C-alpha cells in the first residue's frame, strides 16, 4: 500500500515544488531587474531548473502510476485498464484533461529552461529578463492548474472493477498516431509562449529595436512548424480512425488549433516587413499576443464544455481559470499596447500597394479576417444562446462557404508576392517575372480540365495553385542557380518550400472534397460489384475477437487484387463501435472501404461503403514538405539583411520627385 500512496505524494510534491520555484523565479527576476542586482540574478537559474525538475517528475510519476496500474490514483482508474497495450497505456497520459495539462506543463517547463539556458549570459538584460519573467508566470499558472482544478494525482476511491478502469476512450487506443499527434500539436501551441514572452518584454521595456525579433523569429518558426505538422497529423488520424473518409470537419476543437495557426502564419510573414522596413511593429506584437491568447482561448473552449465537440473532454472546473487567464493576458497586453503603442510606431511608410510589403500586408489582412470569421462562427452559437436562449449550430457548410474565397485569394497572393520587389513594382517587371508562373497556372488548369475536373471553385483553386507553385519554383530555381544547394536554405527559400507544401495541400483538399465518389453496397460473400471503374469482390465476412474487442471484418478484393479488410470493432468495456477503414492508397486516388453496421458473418452478408477520393495522399506529402521547408527556413541563409541588397534598391530619383 505504501508504494501506491507514494505516487500521489510524489506527484503532489513535485507540482508544489515546481509551482513555488517558478513563482519565486519570476519574483526574484523582477526584483533583480528593478534593483539591477547581479547577485540576485544568479539565484534565478536554480529556480528554473527546479521548476523543470518538478514538471519532469510529475510526468514520470504519472507514467509510473499508469504503467504499474496504481489504482490509488483516480486518474489511473479513469484512463487505465488492466489490458490496455503498453503503447496506449503510455499515451493514456494525455487521453484525458488532467494528464494533458501535465503534458502541456512539461513542454512549457522545457521551453522555459531552454530559454533560460540559452540566454544565461544575458539575464541581466531587461528584455531577456522580462521575457523569462513572463515564461515563469505562465509556467506557474499551469502548475497551479495541475495542482488545483485539474489535480491528476487525486486519490481515488477503492476501484470497483465492474464499473471503472476501462482504459482510455476507444478512439484513443486504436491507432499509433495517438503517440504523435497530441504531443506535436502541443509543442506548437506551447512554443508560441516564447515569442509572446518576448513581445510582452518588448512592450514592458519599450525597446523598439528589432533585437527581440531576431531572438524570437526562429522560435515562432519552430512553434509554427510543429503546429502545422500537428494539424496535418490530426487530419490523418481522423482519416484513418473515424471512418467517414474526411480529414477536417470544422469541429470547434479543430478550429481552436487552426486559429493560432492563422495568426502565427500572419506573424511569420509580417515580421519580415518589420525586419526589412522597420514597420508594422505594433501589429506584429498584436499578432503574437493574439496567437498566444488564442491558444488559451482554444483550450478554454474545448476543455470547459461550453462548446460541444467530439474532442472535448468531460466537464471540469478548469473553465473559469482558463477564461480568467485569457482575460488577464488580453487585458495586460492591450494595456501595454495602449501605453506603449504610439511610441513603438515607426515613422516609415509603405510606398506602394504593389510591392512585397504591400502583398504581406494584404496577406495579413486576409489571414486576420480568416481567423476572425472562424472565431465568430465557433462562438456564434454561444452568442445566440446568450441573447435568445435558443440553440443553433454553425458548422462545416458555413466554414466551407467562408473559407473558399479567402483561400483562393490567399493562393493568388502566394503566386504574386514572391515575384514582387520590396518598395515598388513596375508593371513591366511583373509582366516579366510572372509570365512563366502564370503559364504554369494555365497549364495546370488545362491539365485538370483534360482529366475531367468540373466546377468553378476547384478549377480556380487548381489554376491559382499552379500559378503559385510556378512562382515558388521560379524563386527556388533562381536561388539555387545563384548559390547552389544553399539556395534552398534561409527564410525566403525555405519559405518557398513551405509554400509548395501548402499549395499541394490546397490542391489535394480541393480535389478530394470536390470529386469524391461514394456508394453503399449490401453484398453476399462471393459477390462482385463494380463502381467508378473498379470492381469489389467480397471474399469473406468474419467475426473476430481480441482481448478488448469483438468485431466483424470483411475481406474485399479490389480489382481482383489483394484483399482489404475494413472492420468494425466493439470495445466491450465501453459498448462503443469503432470503425476501422481499409484504404488502398495510390498517388492518384485512395479507395477507402468501410464496413457498416448490419453486416452479418453468419449469413455472409456484408454492408460496405466505398469512397473513391482523389489525391488524398498528397495531403500527407504536402505536410511533410511543410515540415521540411520549415527546417530549411530555420537554417541561416545567406545574410540578406544588408541595406545594399539588390531587392531593396533605392527608388530612382525621378520617381522620388514625383511622389
Amino acid at each position, binding site marked *: 500500500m505504501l508504494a501506491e500512496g507514494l505516487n500521489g505524494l510524489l506527484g503532489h510534491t513535485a507540482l508544489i515544488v515546481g509551482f513555488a520555484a517558478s513563482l519565486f523565479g519570476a519574483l526574484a527576476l523582477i526584483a533583480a531587474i528593478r534593483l539591477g542586482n547581479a547577485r540576485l540574478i544568479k539565484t534565478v537559474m536554480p529556480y528554473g531548473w527546479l521548476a523543470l525538475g518538478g514538471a519532469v517528475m510529475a510526468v514520470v510519476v504519472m507514467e509510473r502510476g499508469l504503467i504499474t496500474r496504481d489504482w490509488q490514483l483516480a486518474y489511473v482508474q479513469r484512463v487505465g485498464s488492466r489490458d490496455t497495450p503498453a503503447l496506449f497505456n503510455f499515451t493514456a497520459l494525455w487521453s484525458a484533461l488532467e494528464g494533458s495539462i501535465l503534458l502541456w506543463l512539461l513542454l512549457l517547463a522545457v521551453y522555459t529552461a531552454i530559454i533560460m539556458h540559452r540566454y544565461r549570459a544575458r539575464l541581466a538584460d531587461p528584455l531577456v529578463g522580462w521575457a523569462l519573467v513572463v515564461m515563469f508566470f505562465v509556467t506557474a499558472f499551469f502548475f497551479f492548474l495541475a495542482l488545483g482544478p485539474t489535480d491528476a494525482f487525486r486519490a481515488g476511491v477503492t476501484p470497483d472493477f465492474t464499473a471503472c478502469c476501462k482504459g482510455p476512450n476507444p478512439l484513443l487506443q486504436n491507432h499509433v498516431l495517438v503517440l504523435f499527434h497530441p504531443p506535436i500539436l502541443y509543442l506548437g501551441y506551447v512554443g508560441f509562449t516564447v515569442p509572446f514572452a518576448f513581445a510582452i518584454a518588448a512592450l514592458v521595456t519599450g525597446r*523598439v529595436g528589432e533585437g527581440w525579433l531576431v531572438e524570437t523569429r526562429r522560435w515562432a518558426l519552430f512553434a509554427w512548424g510543429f503546429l502545422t505538422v500537428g494539424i496535418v497529423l490530426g487530419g490523418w488520424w481522423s482519416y484513418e480512425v473515424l471512418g467517414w473518409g474526411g480529414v477536417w470537419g470544422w469541429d470547434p476543437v479543430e478550429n481552436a488549433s487552426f486559429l493560432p495557426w492563422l495568426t502565427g502564419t500572419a506573424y511569420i510573414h509580417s515580421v519580415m516587413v518589420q525586419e526589412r522596413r522597420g514597420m508594422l511593429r505594433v501589429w506584429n506584437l498584436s499578432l503574437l499576443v493574439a496567437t498566444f491568447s488564442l491558444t488559451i482561448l482554444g483550450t478554454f473552449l474545448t476543455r470547459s464544455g*461550453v462548446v460541444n465537440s467530439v474532442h472535448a473532454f468531460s466537464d471540469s472546473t478548469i473553465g473559469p481559470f482558463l477564461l480568467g487567464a485569457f482575460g488577464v493576458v*488580453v487585458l495586460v497586453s*492591450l494595456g501595454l499596447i495602449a501605453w506603449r*503603442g504610439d511610441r513603438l510606431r515607426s515613422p516609415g511608410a509603405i510606398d506602394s500597394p504593389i510591392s512585397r510589403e504591400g502583398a504581406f500586408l494584404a496577406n495579413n489582412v486576409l489571414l486576420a479576417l480568416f481567423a476572425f470569421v472562424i472565431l465568430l462562427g465557433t*462562438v456564434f452559437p*454561444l452568442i445566440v444562446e446568450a441573447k435568445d436562449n435558443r440553440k443553433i449550430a454553425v458548422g462545416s457548410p458555413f466554414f466551407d462557404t467562408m473559407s473558399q474565397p479567402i483561400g483562393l485569394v490567399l493562393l493568388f497572393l502566394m503566386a504574386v508576392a514572391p515575384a514582387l520587389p520590396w518598395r515598388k513594382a513596375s508593371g513591366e517587371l511583373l509582366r516579366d517575372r510572372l509570365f512563366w508562373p502564370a503559364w504554369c497556372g494555365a497549364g495546370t488548369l488545362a491539365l485538370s480540365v483534360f482529366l475531367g475536373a468540373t466546377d468553378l471553385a476547384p478549377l480556380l483553386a487548381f489554376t491559382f495553385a499552379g500559378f503559385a507553385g510556378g512562382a515558388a519554383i521560379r524563386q527556388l530555381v533562381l536561388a539555387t542557380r545563384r548559390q547552389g544547394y544553399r539556395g534552398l536554405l534561409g527564410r525566403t527559400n525555405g519559405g518557398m518550400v513551405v509554400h509548395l507544401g501548402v499549395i499541394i495541400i490546397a490542391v489535394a483538399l480541393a480535389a478530394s472534397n470536390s470529386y469524391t465518389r461514394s456508394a453503399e453496397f449490401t453484398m453476399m460473400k462471393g459477390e462482385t460489384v463494380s463502381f467508378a471503374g473498379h470492381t469489389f469482390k467480397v471474399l469473406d465476412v468474419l467475426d473476430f475477437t481480441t482481448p478488448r474487442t469483438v468485431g466483424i471484418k470483411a475481406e474485399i478484393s479490389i480489382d481482383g487484387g489483394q484483399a482489404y479488410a475494413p472492420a468494425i470493432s466493439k470495445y466491450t468495456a465501453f459498448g462503443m463501435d469503432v470503425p476501422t477503414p481499409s484504404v488502398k492508397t495510390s498517388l492518384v486516388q485512395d479507395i477507402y472501404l468501410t464496413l457498416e453496421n448490419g453486416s452479418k458473418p453468419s449469413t455472409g452478408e456484408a454492408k460496405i461503403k466505398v469512397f473513391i477520393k482523389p489525391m488524398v495522399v498528397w495531403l500527407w506529402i504536402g505536410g511533410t514538405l511543410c515540415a521540411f521547408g520549415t527546417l530549411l527556413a530555420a537554417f541561416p541563409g545567406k545574410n540578406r539583411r544588408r541595406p545594399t541588397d539588390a531587392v531593396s534598391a533605392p527608388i530612382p530619383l525621378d520617381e522620388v520627385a514625383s511622389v
Partner: protein
Amino acid sequence: MSDVEAVEVASGRRPVAPFIALAVALVLGSLFWVLATSKSGPTDTLGLVDSPLIGKPAPAVRGTTADGATFELSRRKGSWVVVNFFNSRCVPCKAEHPALVAFEQQQTTLGADGAELYAIDQPPDSPAEIMAFFAERGGNWPVVLDDDGLFNVAFGVAQVPETFIIDPDGIVRMRWAGAIDSVTLALLVQQQRDIYGLQ
C-alpha cells in the same frame, strides 16, 4: 525618449493606440462576457417541450409491431393515444417503464375514456430483445418497430425516452422529453381531456 517624441511631432501624429486598444478591449470584453455566462455542457431541456407538431395532425406513419401486425396511427382516431418512444438498452427507459405499466393499468380502469398506450421502439432492437424486455418488466402494449427511423424523424425524436399525447381527432397535444412518471402522465392526459371537452 525625446527623439521618439520628436519624430511623432515631426510627422504630425496623434496617439491612436489607446483608442484602438479600447475598441478591441470592448469587443473582447463582450466575448468574455458571453463565454463567462454560457452554460457548460449539453443543456437539453427535459419535461414539457415544444414541437412543430403540437396542434397539428399526428404524422401518418405506418409500421409493424413486434408481433407482426401493421400499425397505423391514423386508424387510432376516436380515442386518446399516448405514444412512447423507447429502446430496450436505454437506461432512463428502463427506469421509466414501471411508470408506464402503472399508467396503463390506471387508464384501463377508465374504460372507453382511457388512453391507449403505444410504444415506438428505436433501432437497433430486435423483436426478441423487446419480448425479453417486457417479459422481465411487465406491461403489455403494442410495440412498433421503427427500423427505418420513420417515426423518429416524423416526430423529431432524437433521444429516447419521449412521450406524445394525441387527442381523439388525431391532433398532437403535448410532448414530453425524458422519463415521465405515472402521476404526471395521467394528470397531463386528464388536463388535455378537460380542455378537449370544453371545445
